[in-house]
């Protein structure tokens, strides 16, 4: 409560400056009488019974009173905290507390007791109102002392520009200390200037905006590059038209560059998911030659481990993902070792039996999960540091979860490479996979190496499951949807080659994403499969086949 009051007080002070500025400059046009502070109770009271479109008008009028108390009312309305009492229709700002509403008067900010939640109706808002409210509130934020708040406020205001907000922005530009905010305001005002009736103003605005990647600018310039036609907006002045065309050419070039960059990024992110799903298989199938149909279910176990970890530490969702990585590695790894010791080791050299046994196992694991966790998908929360997107510029953005997946996959890949090339286990794995008899003769415990290798591959599948829990639904069928893709990537990249998996997976991802805008998601996938079949016909051993003695495995 204290902080709320404090904030209230700050805003009041901040607003006083802005309000006096606005009052001094925005002369009210004769005839239309702007609402005054005295009208406030009546206007606010009107919200209780107004329809959505009437509320729209009321909000505009409320803002025009330039009364600092309006902010609290609008804020509460946006947050859904504004209620009207059924008995007398009075409005209150209310905080819900177990069916009891603690209410405060919206204008005085004083507590007004409490009421049952059944005795009051919430003031409903819809999307259009939400937007109007945000834009209106942004005008108040413009006077904030925090640069970022001001920057956000300017952007918010530019979503819906009218003469009123242009006037406010002009005022702000004159006193704004931050250059970033100034730049944003200028760009916004230039956009508004494109509609000016003065040719010189329009020409200047086009020149200012020639570098902008903003979509509104792009749409306006496209319209301005044509002469006015019947029923269509256009540009009458040839000089402005030419300038608009020139600016468009520059912008188009930039946009197509960034769109290629975007396809590449999306492709890499999809490819990384493929690689992550396949890289564990690259070890069990690629290096050991075991066709493990339960590989997908090992990923599923990893995803469920994430879910369980989140259940155990509900207060620390942000850290839960990091904790889940080793947990999932251990869970899936141990299950993997159990599978190898219990089933696979009896079936070495009999691929068909291995395939059937592990397929049966995958069904058992799915059903086990169904019985333990229910058949429904489990909600795995996304920590805040994984949500949202990194806006590189106005046309290029990548969501954080995809960015992290790319980085994470590459880290897992490097780690695996290091294990295989730099550790004793890696050396033994390679030795056993190349010549089992000779390795045994040299004193390597091949059985132990088999178990460890299978465990390593399975554990990495578990880690992949943690990542997938952030991208897709965590349910008993999670594994099934990735098993085909995983085999596809390993075969394409070249069996027995971790590098091949990394490059193959990313290549398939990029090809898929490049095709998707033209062919649609369904056809793109089919094209990739057809391409893969043709490729395997030409090069049965994949992109990077094993060479020399290793190839005989």
């Amino acid at each position, binding site marked *: 409560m204290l902080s709320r009051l404090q904030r209230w007080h700050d805003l009041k002070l901040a607003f006083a400056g802005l309000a006096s500025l606005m009052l001094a400059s925005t002369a009210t046009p004769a005839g239309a009488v702007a609402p005054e502070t005295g009208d406030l109770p009546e206007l606010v009271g009107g919200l209780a019974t107004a329809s*959505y479109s009437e509320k729209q008008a009321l909000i505009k009028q409320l803002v025009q009173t330039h009364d600092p108390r309006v902010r609290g009312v609008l804020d509460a309305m946006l947050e*859904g905290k504004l209620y009207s009492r059924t008995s007398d229709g009075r409005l209150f700002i209310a905080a819900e507390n177990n069916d009891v509403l603690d209410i405060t008067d919206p204008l005085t900010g004083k507590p007004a007791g409490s009421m049952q939640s059944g005795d009051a109706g919430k003031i*409903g808002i*819809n*999307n*259009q109102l*939400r*937007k109007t409210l*945000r834009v209106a509130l942004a005008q108040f934020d413009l006077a904030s002392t925090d640069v970022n708040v001001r920057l956000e406020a300017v952007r918010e205001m530019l*979503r819906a520009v009218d003469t009123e907000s242009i006037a406010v922005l002009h005022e702000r530009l004159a006193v704004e200390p931050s250059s970033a905010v100034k730049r944003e305001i200028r760009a916004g005002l230039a956009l508004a200037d494109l509609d000016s009736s003065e040719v010189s103003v329009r020409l200047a605005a086009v020149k200012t905006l020639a570098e902008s990647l903003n*979509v*509104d600018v*792009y*749409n*306006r310039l496209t*319209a301005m590059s044509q002469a006015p036609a019947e029923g269509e907006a256009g540009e009458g002045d040839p000089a402005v038209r030419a300038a608009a065309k020139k600016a468009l050419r520059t912008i188009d070039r930039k946009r197509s560059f960034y769109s290629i960059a*975007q*396809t590449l990024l*999306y492709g890499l*992110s*999809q490819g990384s*998911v493929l690689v992550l799903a396949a890289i564990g298989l690259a070890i069990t199938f690629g290096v050991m030659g075991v066709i493990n149909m339960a590989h997908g279910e090992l990923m599923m176990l990893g995803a469920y481990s994430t879910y369980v970890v989140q259940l155990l530490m509900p207060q620390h969702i942000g850290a839960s993902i990091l904790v889940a990585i080793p947990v999932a590695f251990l869970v899936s790894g141990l299950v993997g070792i159990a599978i190898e010791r219990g089933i696979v080791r009896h079936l070495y050299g009999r691929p068909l039996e291995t395939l059937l046994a592990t397929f049966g196992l995958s069904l058992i694991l799915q059903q086990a999960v169904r019985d333990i966790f229910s*058949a*429904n*998908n*489990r*909600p795995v*929360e*996304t920590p805040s540091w994984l*949500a*949202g*997107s990194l806006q590189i510029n106005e046309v290029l*953005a990548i*969501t*954080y*979860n*995809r960015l992290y997946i790319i980085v994470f996959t590459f880290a897992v890949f490097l780690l695996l490479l290091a294990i295989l090339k730099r550790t004793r286990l890696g050396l033994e794995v390679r030795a056993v996979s190349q010549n089992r008899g000779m390795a045994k003769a040299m004193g390597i415990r091949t059985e132990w190496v088999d178990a460890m290798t299978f465990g390593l591959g399975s554990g990495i599948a578990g880690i992949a499951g943690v990542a997938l829990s952030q*991208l*897709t*639904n965590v*349910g008993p*069928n999670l594994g099934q*949807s990735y098993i085909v893709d995983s085999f596809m990537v390993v075969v394409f990249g070249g069996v027995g080659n971790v590098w091949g998996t990394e490059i193959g997976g990313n290549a398939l991802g990029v090809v898929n*994403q490049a095709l*998707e*805008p033209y062919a*649609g*998601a*369904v056809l793109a*996938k089919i094209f990739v499969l057809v391409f893969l079949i043709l490729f395997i016909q030409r090069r049965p051993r994949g992109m990077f086949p094993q060479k020399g003695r290793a190839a005989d495995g």
Partner: protein
Amino acid sequence: MNRGNVLKWAVAGAVTLASMTAAAEDTIKVGVLHSLSGTMAISETTLKDTVLMMIDEQNKKGGLLGKKLEAVVVDPASNWPLFAEKAAELLEKDKVSVVFGCWTSVSRKSVLPVFEKDDGLLFYPVQYEGEESSKNVIYTGAAPNQQAIPAVDYLMKEVGVKRWVLEGTDYVYPRTTNKILQAYLLQKGVKAEDIIVNYTPFGFSDWASEVSKIKKFGSAGKKTAVVSTINGDANVPFYKELGNQKISAEDTPVVAFSVGEEELSGLDAKPLVGHLAAWNYFMSIDTPANKEWIKKWHAFTKNPKRTFNDPMEASVIGFQLWVKAVEKTGSTDTEKVIAALPGLSVGNLTGGTATVLPNHHITKPVYIGEIREDGQFDVVWKTDKEIPGEAWSHYLPSDKGITADWVKLKCGNYNEETKVCSGQNFK
């Protein structure tokens, strides 16, 4: 266990058996044909519970025609051919008087021949693509003109949407609905270049480029909306991606036809606030009937958090209509009950009435709701009165002049020009 005990148990068993058969003789059997396992179990299990609750209620009131109702629950396991087998089992072996069941259109299409051959009666409670009217089915869910068309109307008139993305999962319901919507939008003067139609596979999860395509399409300076017929699992990653790419409902609203309270209950709804759904019922609608109903539902399921949704309301309406028809005819004979159904009305849970039409669809109100933070909906728009369901869409050129009428014409697909009845399940 000594001998005396064995005898005692045997006698007890025999008595129980005897009493059971005795009871079975004067019960009316009600078939419940909803998947209780497999992918559709999430949605269909609640419908089974709804029907069981209705039966329980009816029995507490003393049953029907002086007999108790008995539920026969089977599990078609989300397996479409199995639906037909289980339907045959219910109709031929268990001799049920009525069946409440099916969710997906493909399961309904699969059981249709069985119901027509054995002359059964099916109440189908889910919104669907239309283009069908069977003598043996009462459609208590919405036809496209009771969900899709009003939703698009709302966006066009109230929100001022000029550009449309029709995004769906690749199967029969989205494809037919989008075909109708596209024809409708073109008739309303929307330019062809302002509509894109897009399909993704079941369970799609890599939405990055699909969503950025929507974003790009929506940034052409005209107000854009997404009409989503995305079904099932794929919705979760879709909405997550919308949130991540910062597509806000204020700029580009998404109106969904397959996302309701049940689907949102397993999801963090914060990024979805303001996106829309069109249904004929919302749990949050504040009417005495609805409040009381939800209280009963929570008591029956012993879970105060269980959601109630549109197809469940449609199940309730279907059950009440059947009870009324049986009471009116005084028999459970399907032929008589089917003949009695058109024209019957019962109250729905939102304060209106549901009347069975001659085309075997019912009248329904249409609501547009905006998603709230708690996964419920705020109604932002509703129709003034109930809309009668249309089996055949008059926006599709191929449906011109086709009517369904089981009262006068006795036909589900009657061509008014050629005066030919093409059978009840033509196409």
